[in-house]
């Protein structure tokens, strides 16, 4: 479906001719985001510079019934920004300013296109911490973080993006500009629309400004590593750590497949005879960090750890974390198609879930490595298959359907931090049930009566 020439001309008059792309080659790179197997080009790509331009584009789109898909860096893993029905792709990277940092109020105000790393660095320059720490922080935008409620490695102690969103400026699909929340930590006036919009994946409104909470920067951080003969042992150690009142900043695990892949790739000297690797770490005042690290090391040993090492210095900590950080690249190099998922289960059922995943992988003859956040039950089962083998792609699809079902059986969810987008929409009903699905659609219709915003995703 090509865009009406009149609409195109109006788009050009709103944002300026040089900020609209519509030639076939120009829009082709916007057909996909970081999600494999989803590809569909927009009819036009529009780069607005201010809220008023966003509002004008949305009013135009609503009156002509043209789909609009908002996009930041396109680093999401659920095909949330793939324009399945064409239309306008609204890219917010020109709105990339950090507007204000208020140390007295512990908050930062930024435009949606600023990258997570830029915001975090601006905060750090004033001695403050922006806690959400998604893996793609150097490229992802804060607008995208809020729209997908991005998680990361610090979820257990610090929570996820939603715990830091104080206020939003949002343009509704019909063109009105609203401001939800604000600079206040306490504010119960009306429905909590800030939370509703956080994680709405561009289906309810376009975020044009964010106000995010900051924390004082922790004085120091340290990391340790423990090897176990099985993930069940590691799972028990995690339970013990939390039962003893320690809430660590880092609690990450790798399964046997990941340990082998990482060692083959990065030669870090990992123990490949182990069944599981547990990384534990904390940040804060030096004496508290040291006490917590020692305690966690002892608890791991009590639960039968094969070996426990605590880093003596920052560089050593970084080296240990490297094993976790390079899990995905290490796995992805094993074949040509990498499918990364993020089912989440209650913490005590982590080991059980990993067993289920292993059984599914064996049944479908697939190579699936699992790593993830042991502290918050968020797992990343990652299948690597040959992109040229349609049968393998089919088996992967079937295997993940079973993995999602298993997570729900264990009182978990189909996605912990990546989002629903187009990729997991077929499984959303299994998680929400009929009544919540119907309510979701009514909420969507209240925000977006013409159904122009990110069609084919949640609420459609």
């Amino acid at each position, binding site marked *: 479906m090509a865009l009406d020439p009149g609409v195109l001309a109006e788009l050009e008059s709103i944002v300026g001719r040089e900020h609209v792309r519509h030639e*076939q*080659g120009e829009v082709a790179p916007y057909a996909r985001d970081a999600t494999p197997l989803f590809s569909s080009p927009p009819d036009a790509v529009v780069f607005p510079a201010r809220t008023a331009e966003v509002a004008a584009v949305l009013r135009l789109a609503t009156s002509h019934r043209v789909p609009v898909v908002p996009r930041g860096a*396109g680093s999401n893993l659920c095909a949330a920004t793939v324009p399945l029905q064409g239309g306008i792709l609204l890219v917010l990277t020109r709105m990339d300013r950090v507007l204000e940092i208020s140390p007295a109020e512990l908050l930062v105000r930024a435009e949606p296109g600023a990258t997570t790393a830029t915001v975090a660095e601006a905060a750090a320059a004033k001695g403050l911490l922006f806690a959400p720490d998604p893996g793609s922080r150097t490229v992802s935008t804060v607008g995208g973080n809020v729209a997908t409620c991005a998680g990361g490695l610090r979820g257990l102690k610090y929570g996820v993006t939603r715990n830091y969103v104080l206020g939003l400026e949002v343009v509704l699909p019909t063109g009105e500009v609203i401001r939800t929340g604000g600079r206040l930590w306490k504010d119960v006036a009306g429905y909590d629309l800030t939370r509703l919009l956080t994680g709405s994946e561009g289906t309810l409104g376009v975020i044009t400004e964010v106000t995010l909470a900051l924390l004082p920067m922790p004085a120091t951080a340290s990391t340790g590593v423990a090897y176990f003969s099985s993930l069940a042992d590691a799972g028990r150690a995690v339970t013990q750590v939390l039962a003893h009142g320690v809430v660590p900043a880092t609690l990450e695990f790798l399964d046997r497949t990941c340990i082998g892949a990482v060692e083959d790739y990065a030669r870090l000297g990992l123990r490949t005879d182990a069944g599981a690797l547990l990384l534990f770490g904390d940040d804060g005042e030096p004496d508290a960090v040291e006490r917590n690290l020692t305690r966690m090391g002892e608890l791991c040993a009590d639960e039968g750890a094969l070996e426990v090492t605590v880093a003596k210095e920052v560089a050593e900590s970084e080296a240990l974390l490297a094993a976790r950080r390079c899990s995905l690249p290490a796995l992805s190099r094993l074949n040509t198609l990498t499918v990364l*998922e993020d089912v989440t289960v209650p913490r005590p059922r982590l080991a059980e879930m990993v067993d289920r995943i292993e059984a599914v992988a064996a049944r479908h003859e697939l190579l699936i490595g699992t790593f993830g956040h042991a502290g918050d039950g968020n797992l990343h089962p990652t299948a690597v298959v040959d992109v040229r083998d349609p049968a393998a792609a089919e088996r992967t699809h079937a295997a993940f359907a079973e993995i999602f079902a298993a997570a729900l059986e264990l009182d978990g969810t189909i996605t912990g931090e990546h989002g629903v987008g187009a990729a*997991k929409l077929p499984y959303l009903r299994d998680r929400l049930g009929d009544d919540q699905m119907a309510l979701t659609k009514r909420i969507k219709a209240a925000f977006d009566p013409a159904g122009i915003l990110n069609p084919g995703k949640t609420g459609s």
Partner: protein
Amino acid sequence: MSAEVSPGVDAPGAAGAAARGIFPPELLDRCISCGFCLPACPTYALSKDEKSSPRGRITLMRALETGVLEEDDPTLREESSFCLGCRACEPVCPAGVQYGELLEHWRSHQWQGRHRPPLARVLTNVVVRNWLVRRLGTFRGHARTAATSPQGPHLMLGCFERALFPAVSRAARRLRPELDAPGNQGCCGALHAHNGDLELGRTMGRRLGEQLPGTIVTTAGGCAAHLAGVLGRDRVKEFSEYLARDGSASLGELRVDGRRARVALQDSCHLRNGMDVWREPRELIAAVADYVELPGAAQCCGSAGTYSLLRPKDSRRVLAPKLDQIEAAGVDYVVAVNPGCQRQLVTGLRRRRSRVRVLHLTELLAAAQDGGLPRRRLRLGARPGRRAEVPADEPAGLTAHLNDRPLPDDPGAAGAGRPDALDGSAGPDEVHRS
């Protein structure tokens, strides 16, 4: 994963997708589209447009491979040319995409026949001829040895380098007299591989490998990376790498106005991103002078092989913030490890009438060893008068002419390229540009 895999699957070779056979599938399949390359890409920094990013360009390559885009699509032509080929995307890529090689295949296909930039055609045609390459350097007095020991190590003289900066090979041999430098050696073919003739580039690399058996030592980062790709990493040593293996003992010291000289480095993109050589030149500089790290030392200077000639305006936009950094750093010298970068910096700094001088690493180290920089030597054929006053670090003749081609508006002017220079208004204190 979803039950509804969209029809427009762009992975070549995926069920139903056609393949034109332009790219080796194992190279194109590597990219997982995570976008980690975006912050590293100089052209993405200029345009903020996905099509000018490594990830976007790979999506374009896939669209070309599968026939989603026609072969003469204007965006394909423009983006294959706008890319600097600096390979800054490779070290940050978690999936290990060999972008530089993909680009070579892309240009080899895209720049066939009339689509090849005419200037690229002229330059590559010149240096493919062995006798012409020899002639390039004949009058400029580059280093040369008559006999060739069969096992080396040999000093590679380069094609344009021997004409533009003959003092570099002379300095290299003053530092390491054991290096053989036969004058009848040819060009390594990097120029061809990067400009749409990958096969010829590889053939020339192999031919140079036969002319210079054993270890080849080169003073050009770009040539080093290309040769390493053709002949194997073991046979090629970039000069700093060659020097660094026997420590930095007795290198001397370079002084300016009675104090240690302050010296910055401009990395060679292919040396750093393609060969992981970047510590060595820093250590060598620090051994003879006070080393100053430029904030953007690792980023492309915009020379990028033929890029500064083919796309002078874009080249200057990339260079401008770097010149600002060099001038702000308060250094006496900035060191290059590749002739293209050297030429780019000389030209850019001269245009600004900067007092910072540009030296190749070999020239800096030789000066430290000799106890100072040589006074400018009158060149053979140089006439007295204006040209004789040109400082010794400047290329002459054809190059000076190319460097000085006037441009309608000069994006290389001081301050251009800085974000705050674009919108003119500096906001209140709390405003930060990303």
